[in-house]
């Protein structure tokens, strides 16, 4: 029976009656939860209850009889109460829903009571606030009920505590019912324990999955699982054959199969449909309004007033007496009205100027707000108003980026000025600035920009230097890559991309001679030896030594003789370069010697004595980048065994046997006699384009494609003594003057900058570098400006050749 009951309850929650019900359902039992939530309550009570249960079990058989007998109230009043509730569709039925399940066990009632307890406990929590009202309600209703009845109920209330309220309400509602008095509610224990067979409690039963037993009975003996040897087939057969299969469920606690009765099944169905478990319960009962606006003529209770309501309270008297005494003694004073307006006084009556900034010296006072300018006026001068474009630009800017936080506006009169919508914002922002803005003391140095300009000697005092463009040598039809001046200073040679070499007279700008060669001329160099008249011209992979036949005829013939006097040595060595003597037409034009190189020659340069000639054949891969020719012996040698990077240009030291090789980033200085590297200069630039050596030999300037000109003092260090960035574009060439302390640099920006570069004999004094003149004249074509710069050997004149096909002389 007990099992049945339990199961009945469990099934309530499931909605799949045809399946076997599993014990998981138990967890969804709300009362089970309550049980687990109130361990102390049950813990203390459990023993007692268990005992009671035993008793009840004994009585189990008897009680249903009474139940079945109908509404007899006599023997078990408490139950009767509930039954009445059932019959009269009491509120309890709502809570339990089990009364009408047709089971006739007392256990059921027990459980009902469990539920009641639970619900009451819940509702009591909720209804605590309402109790007052309920009580009063009861009192209102009482006149309708039997006086006796009410009295009994009161007693009951006293006895039953919380439950009383509930019961009485119920009782009040169906006031017609006679409710038996003197109910001992503990007669039947309303314990919320459910199974008394198995004492394991509300635990997941799968813990016992692997054991033969399923728990312990009250005596602590193992409850063994019923022997089940049904396999799937049996199960299936059972399913097919047993007509009651669908109403058979397994009790998890005991493992026994239980067949549900018709009533139970009916209950399950009802609950599935969302109906009340109780068949007779009418959920749409007419509501009775207890609290109407009608004033009743009779008092709600006719309870006589308490005695204490007539007699003055002694306790209160005592309290009042104490207060009076305290007032008399002046211990208690009446409350003074509070001052709402702040009181001001002379706060700085005793000023202590020493405490100024006493807190710390890091105090940074907040700067004051910026004062408004003309543009903020309501009627500003017209120039401060924004034009349409300005206004649009202003609107498109981010509010943070705006220079003005408002739009200047003009109003015809003061009357028309509206409220400024961001006024509060601005105040608020000021507040934020004051307390949130990190402050920092910034030292603002008021620099006069004039002071920053270095004090240099005036260019006037550094004269002579070229100042004006005096001559333009026109004739070339393409870029003039290279120029060179004869050692006498009378002639100028220029080589151009139009495959010609032109000879000019310096003083008249007249082209004396034009020599055509077989390719774009990359470099020309006049032999610096005044007693030899030879010009080295490089084009493609060829270097031609030309005798222009200009100037002193003696010199010309001498140089011709020098070449023709060469005698073939006995043992002919294999040379890197083919030496050939020009003949025929070439000779007529002045070609004397033709040197065929393995690679394209970019630059040619003479040694100061005029016998050696160095050629640069830039090539990243091989070690053959620089060759040195000896003209008188027609010998060629490659001074370097290793490739140290792309060679840009080379140069001989004017006095000592040094050889300068400029690669992309470094300038290496080799001692030719000792055949070793003496110095490696770091240019600090990306790509060296050109190099020139001071006639004194101790200073070098390097021009680079990244607009820098680096001046090295070889005595000082391998880093530049000074780096000048005065050109806007890449430097193409640099040159020193042979006598005057001048150097010039030509750049792609079309300008030649002449600087005064004084080198002192005193080693302690650093060179003085002063830019003295910017010479402009070349037009920029194909992004190229000045390609070569060279000084006149004796005069302070500078020649420059440009991409516009001209050579210009600045004097």
């Amino acid at each position, binding site marked *: 029976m007990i099992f049945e009951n339990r199961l009945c309850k469990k099934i309530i929650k499931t909605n799949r009656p045809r399946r076997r019900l599993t014990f998981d359902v138990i967890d969804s039992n709300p009362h089970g939860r309550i049980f687990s939530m109130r361990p102390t309550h049950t813990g203390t009570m459990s023993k007692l209850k268990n005992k009671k249960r035993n008793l009840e079990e004994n009585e189990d058989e008897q009680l249903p009889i009474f139940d079945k007998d109908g509404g007899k109230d006599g023997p078990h009043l408490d139950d009767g109460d509930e039954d009445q509730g059932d019959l009269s569709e009491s509120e309890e039925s709502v809570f339990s829903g089990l009364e009408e399940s047709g089971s006739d066990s007392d256990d059921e009632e027990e459980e009902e009571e469990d539920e009641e307890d639970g619900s009451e406990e819940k509702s009591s929590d909720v209804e605590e606030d309402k109790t007052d009202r309920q009580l009063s309600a009861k009192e209102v209703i009482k006149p309708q009920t039997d006086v006796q009845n009410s009295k009994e109920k009161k007693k009951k209330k006293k006895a039953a505590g919380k439950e009383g309220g509930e019961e009485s309400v119920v009782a009040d509602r169906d006031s017609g019912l006679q409710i038996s008095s003197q109910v001992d509610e503990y007669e039947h224990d309303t314990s919320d324990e459910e199974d008394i067979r198995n004492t394991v409690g509300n635990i997941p039963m799968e813990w016992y999955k692997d054991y033969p037993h399923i728990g312990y009975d009250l005596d602590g003996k193992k409850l063994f699982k019923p022997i089940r040897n049904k396999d799937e087939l049996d199960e299936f057969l059972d399913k097919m054959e047993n007509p009651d299969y669908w109403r058979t469920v397994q009790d998890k606690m005991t493992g026994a199969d239980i067949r549900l009765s018709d009533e139970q099944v009916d209950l399950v169905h009802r609950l599935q449909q969302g109906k009340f478990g109780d068949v007779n319960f009418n959920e749409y009962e007419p509501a009775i309004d207890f609290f109407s606006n009608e004033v009743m003529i009779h008092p709600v209770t006719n309870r006589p007033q308490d005695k204490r309501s007539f007699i003055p309270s002694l306790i209160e008297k005592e309290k009042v007496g104490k207060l009076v005494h305290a007032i008399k003694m002046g211990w208690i004073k009446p409350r003074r009205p*509070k001052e709402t307006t*702040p009181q*001001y*006084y*002379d*706060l700085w009556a005793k*000023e*202590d100027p020493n*405490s100024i900034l*006493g*807190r*710390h010296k*890091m105090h*940074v*006072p907040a700067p004051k*707000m910026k004062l*408004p*300018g*003309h543009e*903020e006026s*309501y*009627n*500003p*001068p*017209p*120039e*401060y108003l924004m*034009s349409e474009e300005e206004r649009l630009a202003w609107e498109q800017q981010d509010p943070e980026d705006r220079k003005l936080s408002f739009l200047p*506006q003009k109003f*015809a009169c*003061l*009357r028309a*000025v509206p*409220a*400024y919508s961001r*006024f*509060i*914002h601005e105040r608020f922002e*000021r*507040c934020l600035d*004051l*307390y*949130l803005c*990190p*402050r*920092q003391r910034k030292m603002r140095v008021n620099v006069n*920009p004039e002071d*920053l*300009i*270095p004090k*240099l000697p005036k*260019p006037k005092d550094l004269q002579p230097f070229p100042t004006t*463009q*005096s001559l333009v040598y026109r004739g070339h039809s393409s870029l003039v890559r290279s120029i060179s001046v004869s050692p006498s200073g009378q002639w100028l040679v220029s080589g151009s991309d139009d495959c010609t070499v032109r000879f000019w007279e310096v003083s008249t700008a007249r082209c004396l001679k034009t020599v055509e060669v077989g390719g774009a001329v990359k470099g020309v160099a006049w032999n610096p030896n005044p007693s030899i008249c030879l010009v080295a011209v490089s084009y493609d992979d060829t270097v031609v030594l030309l005798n222009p036949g200009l100037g002193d005829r003696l010199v010309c013939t001498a140089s011709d003789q020098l070449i023709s006097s060469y005698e073939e040595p006995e043992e002919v060595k294999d040379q890197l370069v083919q030496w050939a003597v020009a003949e025929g037409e070439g000779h007529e034009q002045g070609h004397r010697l033709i040197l065929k190189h393995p690679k394209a020659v970019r630059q040619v340069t003479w040694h100061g004595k005029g016998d050696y000639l160095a050629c640069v054949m830039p090539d990243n891969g091989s070690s053959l980048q620089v060759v040195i020719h000896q003209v008188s012996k027609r010998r060629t040698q490659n001074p370097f065994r290793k490739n140290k990077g792309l060679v840009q240009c080379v140069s001989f030291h004017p006095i000592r046997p040094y050889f300068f090789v400029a690669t992309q980033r470094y300038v290496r200085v080799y001692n030719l006699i000792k055949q070793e590297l003496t110095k490696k200069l770091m240019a600090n630039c990306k790509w060296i384009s050109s190099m020139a050596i001071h006639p004194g030999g101790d200073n070098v300037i390097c021009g680079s494609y990244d607009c820098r000109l680096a001046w090295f003092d070889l005595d000082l260090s391998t880093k530049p003594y000074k780096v000048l*960035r005065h050109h806007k574009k890449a430097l193409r060439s640099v040159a020193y003057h042979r006598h005057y302390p001048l150097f010039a640099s030509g750049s792609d920006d079309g300008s030649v900058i002449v600087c005064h570069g004084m080198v002192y004999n005193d080693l302690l004094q650093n060179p003085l*570098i*002063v830019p003295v*003149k*910017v010479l402009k*004249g070349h037009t920029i074509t194909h992004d190229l400006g000045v390609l070569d710069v060279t000084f006149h050997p004796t005069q302070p004149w500078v020649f420059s050749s440009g991409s516009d096909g001209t050579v210009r002389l600045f004097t």
Partner: protein
Amino acid sequence: MGGLQKKKYESGSATNYISRNKARKKLSLSLADFRRLCILKGIYPHEPKHKKKVNKGSTAPRTFYLLKDIRFLLHEPIVGKFREYKIFVRKLRKAYGKAEWSGVQRMKENKPAYKLDHIIKERYPTFIDAVRDVDDALSMCFLFSTFARTGKCHVQTIQLCRRLGVEWMNYIIASRSLRKVFLSIKGIYYQAEVLGQTITWIIPYQFAHDHPTDVDYRVMATFTELYTTLLGFVNFRLYQTLNLVYPPKLDGQGEFSLKSECEEDYALESESYSEKLAALSASLARTVPSVEDEEAELDHFPAEGEDLEKMETREKMELEQNKQKKLFEGLKFFLNREVPRESLAFVIRCFGGEVSWDKSLCIGSTYDETDETITHHIVDRPTIDKQYINRYYIQPQWVYDCVNGKILLPVEEYFLGVTLPPHLSPFVEESEGDYVPPEKLKLLALQKGEKPQAEEDEEEEEEEDDEDDEEEDDQSEDEDEAEDEASLAEMEEKRAQGKSLSVKVTPGKVKPENRMRTEQEEKAEEKRLAIMMMKKREKYLYDKIMFGKKRHVREANKLAAKRKAHDDANKPDKKKKKKKC
């Protein structure tokens, strides 16, 4: 070797600063309380010199406070009050929850309150410090006093702010220390010189505020709390320095008793006095000794009303000190009802003028519109029906322009219906190279005492000259190079031409050699060459400075050009007008 290894971030700047969160934890305050404490105590974050060091190597953006500041906060009694208040709120909430109304009442009566007196004293050890910092306080109080008495903050605060603002204005009137006024589109700026400190504040125009939602009024209220306290003490002390009674009392009781009938219509009995004070039309009562002194002098001028005479004698004392203070002396103003009464009354009274308005407009009017002695009637509407002959009808801007110009400007330009001359900011002080609007030049000329009529033409010329000069200045630098080049090119061309084309020799003209010019060019070139030799860092700095200068010049040029364009566009109109006249 030598001692223990030093650990990082255990000394130096890392220990001098503390992040905000750490500071908050150290003080065990909630963020809101910490914020309030910082506002009240004037603690602000510092930007450390080496942020990464202070941040212990991290570059996360943090605000840092000085550790000393935070330590200084540790012993602040107000912190205790904050905690008390927190407890109070908790208790009150509980009482509400339990519906213990008597308890609620009792607790509300014993609400913990704090005073900020000691904080004011601590933040401003000397009175001058406080006066120096009163700018923001004034602006804030004047703003709060214009709030509606609903919602945003306590009514008491608004009332207090209003009271303090009125007190301040009365003091400024009494001490005649107003210097400059500026009608901006945001509000009216006032600048006064109080005890040698220049104080500027702004009052919004009298409109209802459209309260923004993105403003934290609690922060504003906390600031106001501090500012009202500060302003109260400052006012007290200032009144003391002038021997005025604090809280301010009106002088000349007799006059007011006469007018009491109409006042009843205007305000409640309780408010009428403060309203009268706020009307700014009457002078304030002084403490006994000074009053006697002045009264002694009063006897010499028995003709006029007592009040006025007293005022006049006081003015004359200050007259010797400053001419400006008696600017409106002897002038009688009448304000029409559409002009901003309070501002005008304040300004006029600050410079010794008498002012009145319609009785129905505000309390405290001293004479009627029909008064024959009124010299200036301030109107802000295109025409007025009934005009009296012996007074000027002018627009309100005249008053403000006079104050800023420190002279009585000719009234012709401010007559009714006339297009007003621009209203210039008195706060702008043009340095050399800045753009000066022609109106300002005019004003300067007027101040020098030159006649306006003859001035105009000259001025125009001047203007133009100035503009030209400016332009030249600006462009000269840019032009120099170009000119050089141009001259070079020209010379070159000439030479080339001379050589190639004309073989015959023409009699050469003597080229007038501009020595100055060449010298200048030379100098410019020298400079340019020298700039080439500058070090990288210096060059950068120099370029930056020059860029700023050039931008400045450019802006000035732009303004000048705009003005010129505007004038050119408007010239025909003017001429037409003149012809019509």
